[in-house]
């Protein structure tokens, strides 16, 4: 039987994978994808809790839609930045982008 607990467990695993990707991937595009993964784990939480806790309303679903829209915009801006920086540096490796330090 699949219940709330299983959904939350899946969301947690997705979130952990996302964090791992954000912290350890050197490719900027991969980092961006990992961020999407984290956002989607949160969306999953919203929808699951809405389904099991407040069944007569649809706030969780609405919020998930909202997050998807914002994430789409964010990905657009992020990819634009990565393209722009790739044109400058011929690289998408985050290790090369450490100008703003001591």
């Amino acid at each position, binding site marked *: 039987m699949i219940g709330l607990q299983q959904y939350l467990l899946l969301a947690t695993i997705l979130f952990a994978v996302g964090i791992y990707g954000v912290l350890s991937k050197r490719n900027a595009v991969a980092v961006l994808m990992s961020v999407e993964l984290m956002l989607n784990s949160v969306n999953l939480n919203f929808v699951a809790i809405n389904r099991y806790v407040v069944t007569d309303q649809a706030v969780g679903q609405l919020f998930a839609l909202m997050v998807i829209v914002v994430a789409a915009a964010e990905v657009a801006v992020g990819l634009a930045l990565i393209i722009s920086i790739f044109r400058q540096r011929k690289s998408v490796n*985050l290790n090369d982008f450490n100008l703003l*330090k*001591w």
Partner: protein
Amino acid sequence: MFAWSLELAWLIVLLPFAAFALIGLFLHRWPRLSASVSILAIGLSFALSVLVAAHVFLGGMQETFEISMRWLAMPGLNVDMGLLIDGLTAVMLIVVTLVALLVQVYSLGYMHGDPGFSSYYAYQSVFAGSMLGLVLANNFGQLFVFWELVGLASYLLIGFWFGRHSAKNAAVKAFVTNRVGDFGLLLGILFLQIIFGTLNFNGLAGEIAGYTNTAVLIAISILLLAGPIGKSAQFPLHVWLPDAMEGPTPVSALIHAATMVAAGVYLIARAFFIFSSTPEAMTLIAVIGGFTALFAATIALVQNDIKRILAYSTLSQLGYMVMAMGIGAMTAGMFHLMTHAFFKSLLFLGAGSVIHAMADEQDIWKMGRLKDKMPITTWTFVIGALALAGIPPLSGFWSKDEILLSAFAGGHIVLYLLGTLVAFMTAFYMFRLIFVAFFGTNKGGEEAHESSAVMTVPLIILAVLAVVAGFVGSPVMNYAFGHFVTYPGAVHYEPNTVVMVISGLVAIAGIVLAWAIYQKQLISHLALRQRFKVIYDLLYHKYYIDEIYQWLGERFVYGTAKVLFWFDIYVVNGIVNGIAALTGGAGRVLRYTETGQVQTYAAYMLVGVIVIVGLVMIAGFTLLI
């Protein structure tokens, strides 16, 4: 009679200040005009003072006249500005305005052609106004303000020739030494305000009469006494007065002989109700005065500078006055203050006339037969010296005799003997000066010439006063002085022929001894000097007081300064620099956390979130809300 003059008494103070403002702001380009304005102002003040004095003395004014207005009000302290006129004030008004007027006229000749002629008269005016404000004050607050102002005028005039190093140093020395005394005076005044709630003289007199805590009264008396010790140059704060002779000689005559240095004696007389309330304070005053009188007279015996001899003589005579106050003879002390003002300013102006004629030479051994060249100066000087020595019937005789009589009849035998000894020394050192400088055999003074009339006329007027001023307090005029300048419970002693004869005889003996040594040269003064070389050196170097102060200053002031300097450099600076270094060091270390790697920052954020979530889980949700 002349009652209206009392209502105008404020003009006496205001006129010299107005002259100062006029000269300082507008007239300083025209020296002669400045001098005229200054002399006109002090002349009008003198005329008004004469009217006031006439009303007080001849009009039979019984009670004191007082007007007052609030100047400064704050919780716990009210300072008034007012006028208090009684016999004591009237005497001081006459003395100050008259001597100031004569000195300013005399300065026309003495300061002729000086580049600072206008500022000299501006300073003279500010001094005259402040001194008059001081004697007219009806409360301690106002008295202190003017007390400091005369100190300022004194500083400006001592350092008038500030191009000379010695004059500059003397001015600073006078100011700093007075600061020591004035600090005590200020503390005393604050104590009076705190304990009695008023600074008004009449109000305080009533309060103190009913006050019984003797310890407090003694403490206040001693604190207040510090002011006169500084201003009237009593031991141990006497060191500034001889150095103050660096100022122009008329300044020495007015400020450092006749008026300002007498302000301390005046303060004791004005606050006599405080000092006389405890015998301990009175004894202290008498001892300080008597010691200063003897101490300064011995130094005067061997000095060679004409102005320094007179300066030590002034110290000695001020000691006399203070001693008179201390033995309760306030009237006699004020009487001596008045006669001393006349004959000592005469002597100083005479010395100024000599110095002027000798092209700024002040060593009496470089003078000689001045009597042939400067007859008026010589004979007025001799009259002044006779009055100072106390030869009857000149003014000094009556006032000195009054003090000695009070000491003798009051049972202060030691002080009486001391006073008589000082009288002998006074006669001796004055006539040593006269025989060497005016009647001597030295060749010096060949090119000297008599001074002009603006200088000799004041000398003649003062000489007349030096002769006759004593009669107002003598049996000849039935002790008129004592009827007006007195205090409740004053005791007047009947004249004692023995005291009179002895004081006359010791004065004559002093003159004869000086004549024998320095005129007839029956005893060689050089041989005497050799014989008593140790004593001579001790006296010549003024008991090494200046050197001792110098030594103490270097040891203690510089020592303390060194310790504080060390403290400042290593402790205060250390703390400040330490905090700065700590901040800088922390920054230097912590900046390596800023790697520029966006993923590192993300990791920090994650750690932060984990820590917060962990804390919330441990402490529960209530902590957050």
